[in-house]
């Protein structure tokens, strides 16, 4: 056992860091550093730069344009992107649909879909949750009926992140309403968002922004050829996909980056006439978060190393542990940044302070420090982190069922 990174791993980290510093657009870096969300263009531009280098698809097998990096290298890569304020690659494309196509797709699907997903020529989104099917996903009702060479899809999806900017959606539909168990009547379809009959309606979230949507399907024609794997076996595909989702969802590097950012801010913000960074209570809080991050880093390494060694390819139930701790840490670090800004984080003046997106000729003086305008929204939006991807309560049920067996 040796918990230190090897010389090669340290060199690899430096290589990734140098690459990001040399290639990431300064405006994108600054936007993410201040806590703003990456724009669609930020993400597309960065993923294409990575793709040219062969790094966008770092999680895929080498034969499909991936890398032969070790689990540790993959973790370092993800972490460095997050720490250096780079946008994260589009998870729907890289972590979800890509591996699904590689595992279940036909040769034609692989040839057509994978390169476009890698280069973000197509932006994918996920049509899983429904108003009546959240934690109990298998109770979903969106129906697909086969007519000739097509399925006719009717129903509604909800909480569909980025549907308003997506080209394609992978959708779970019910193809057999009479199956013995609800899981046995579900199929996995790929749907072109331009197909007639699809309506996307925005859901504004408590951070005041538009990330989420409702997606309505009204007699939407989907070719049978766009079904992945067998009819009524879509649940197997979904389980495979969700197992992959859970490891990336910890986003540990992002938490580390927020801790660094908080330390930076706390040097300039004052409390009781001294820099906040000198306040003993504040220092303890930061130190506690650093301990949590260190523990999670090592646990994550242990889980991914074990997954690499396992031959069955089944998702490790320990990935639920990473999801729970990772999202808690994301929430706590976002809360830390907001608390530093204090009263200045409370006005909804993000737009007024957004100097990076100022329109040409707008010389209106700003009314507060740039960074304060975006100190609260990540805190607000990240309340969803313990809800999406399977609530943290559901993750604990998974741990119980798979490991504790109480």
């Amino acid at each position, binding site marked *: 056992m040796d918990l230190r990174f090897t010389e090669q791993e340290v060199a690899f980290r430096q290589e990734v860091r140098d690459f990001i510093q040399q290639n990431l657009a300064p405006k994108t870096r600054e936007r993410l550093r201040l806590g703003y969300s990456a724009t669609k263009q930020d993400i597309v531009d960065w993923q294409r730069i990575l793709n040219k280098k062969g790094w966008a698809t770092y999680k895929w097998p080498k034969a499909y344009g991936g890398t032969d990096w070790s689990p540790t290298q993959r973790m370092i890569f993800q972490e460095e992107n997050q720490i250096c304020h780079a946008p994260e690659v589009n998870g729907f494309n890289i972590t979800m649909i890509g591996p699904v196509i590689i595992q279940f797709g036909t040769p034609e699907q692989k040839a057509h879909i994978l390169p476009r997903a890698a280069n973000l020529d197509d932006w994918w989104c996920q049509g899983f949750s429904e108003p009546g099917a959240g934690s109990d996903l298998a109770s979903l009702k969106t129906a697909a009926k086969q007519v000739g060479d097509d399925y006719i899809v009717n129903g509604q999806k909800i909480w569909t992140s980025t549907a308003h900017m997506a080209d394609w959606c992978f959708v779970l539909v019910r193809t057999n309403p009479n199956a013995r168990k609800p899981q046995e009547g579900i199929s996995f379809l790929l749907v072109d968002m331009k197909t007639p009959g699809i309506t996307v309606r925005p859901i504004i979230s408590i951070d005041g922004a538009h990330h989420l949507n409702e997606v309505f399907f009204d007699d939407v024609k989907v070719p049978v050829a766009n079904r992945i794997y067998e009819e009524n076996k879509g649940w197997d595909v979904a389980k495979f996909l969700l197992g992959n989702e859970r490891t990336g969802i910890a986003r540990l590097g992002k938490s580390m980056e927020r801790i660094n950012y908080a330390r930076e801010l706390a040097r300039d913000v*004052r409390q009781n006439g001294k820099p906040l960074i000198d306040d003993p209570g504040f220092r303890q809080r930061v130190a506690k978060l650093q301990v949590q991050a260190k523990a999670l880093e090592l646990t994550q390494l242990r889980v991914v190393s074990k997954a690499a060694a396992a031959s069955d390819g089944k998702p490790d139930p320990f990935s639920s542990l990473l999801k729970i701790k990772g999202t808690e840490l994301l929430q706590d670090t976002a809360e830390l940044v907001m608390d530093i800004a204090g009263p200045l984080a409370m*006005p909804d003046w993000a737009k007024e302070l957004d100097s990076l997106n100022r329109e040409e000729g707008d010389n209106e003086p700003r009314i507060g420090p740039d960074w304060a305008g975006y100190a609260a929204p990540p805190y607000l939006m990240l*309340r*969803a982190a313990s809800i999406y991807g399977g609530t943290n309560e559901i993750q604990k049920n998974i741990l119980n069922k798979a490991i504790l067996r109480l």
Partner: protein
Amino acid sequence: MDFDLTEDQRLLNDSVGRLLADRYAFDARRGYIKSPQGWSQDLWDKYAELGLLGLPFAEDYGGFGGNAVDIMMVMEAFGRNLVLEPYLATVVLGGSAIKYAGNEAQKGELLPQIVDGSLKLAWAHSEQQARYDLSDVMTTATKDGSGWILEGAKSVVFHGDCADTLVVSARTSGDRMDKAGVTLFLIPAGTPGLARRGYAMRDGTRAAEISLSSVKLGADAVLGTVGDAMAVIERVTQAGIAAMAAEAVGACEAAHAMTLEYLRTRVQFGRPIGQNQVLQHKAADMLIEVEQARSMAMLAAMMVDENDPAERSRNISMAKVGVGQSGRFVTQAAVQLHGGIGMTEEYQVGHYFRRVMVFEHMWGDSAYHLGLLADQVA
């Protein structure tokens, strides 16, 4: 000890409850937010009719001679209904400043106008660089003949955009962090050199940034003693904490009630999710924290009129920590137990969450007040 309300307080509580139940449905509130001033003039007039605007002022000024417990009751009801009107700014903050610092002429002129609803005030003390330090005042007032000239800026002034008169603190002597040397001024909103930029807060209430550029005031604009306002500033802030703590308790109580309703009606896996023991325990934890917070809001209300400043500030800090920490827990859990719907703008629980968040970040968050208390641990 006596935890019971008087008959008058019960009657008042009932009439406030009825008015808000009738006029503050979530959709109606959305309409008030969308109006240009962001709140309802009609309801403001109703509060005046009901006597709420005169609650804490002596009968000599047309008030009702009530105390902080009366304010607590009203603020709890306001919290349950997410009330948007400038009550805290005018009656609690501005009103306290005049009550504690005003001379007879000022009280005689201004308090009756608050009571009848014709005067709205704003408390313009905090500055951007100050965060939670009450004595960090960089706005200056320099002598100009018998009057004063003010220069500076004030930040996150509740309802500063609609106030008729602002109570503004400025340094008349001493250095940036000195407790001594700060003076309060009454500045009518139309005074040349005073500019304000209004905006919505994260919870939909209104506030403003205020700038003061060569604002000329007469000697009669001074509220209280020149150079000696810090004790008043502390009292006004404490009254604000006590009132807003009660409001936060109301918001927590309502968020908890909504969560229980959701647990009873949301069906997953063929049964209401409230049948899961883990969610029952979380809901029970919320109940515990709501009641703990309520106790601390009561403590804060009792302490507003305490004469010993050390005792008063120590207990107000305890209440701020207690309500702040419980409030975070309760409203975060309310969002969590609702799942996706709790994350949306169009659902009420997220609005409670943000109202409590704003409370927590005004006049010192839990960590700040915990620090003050920790300094006193011997």
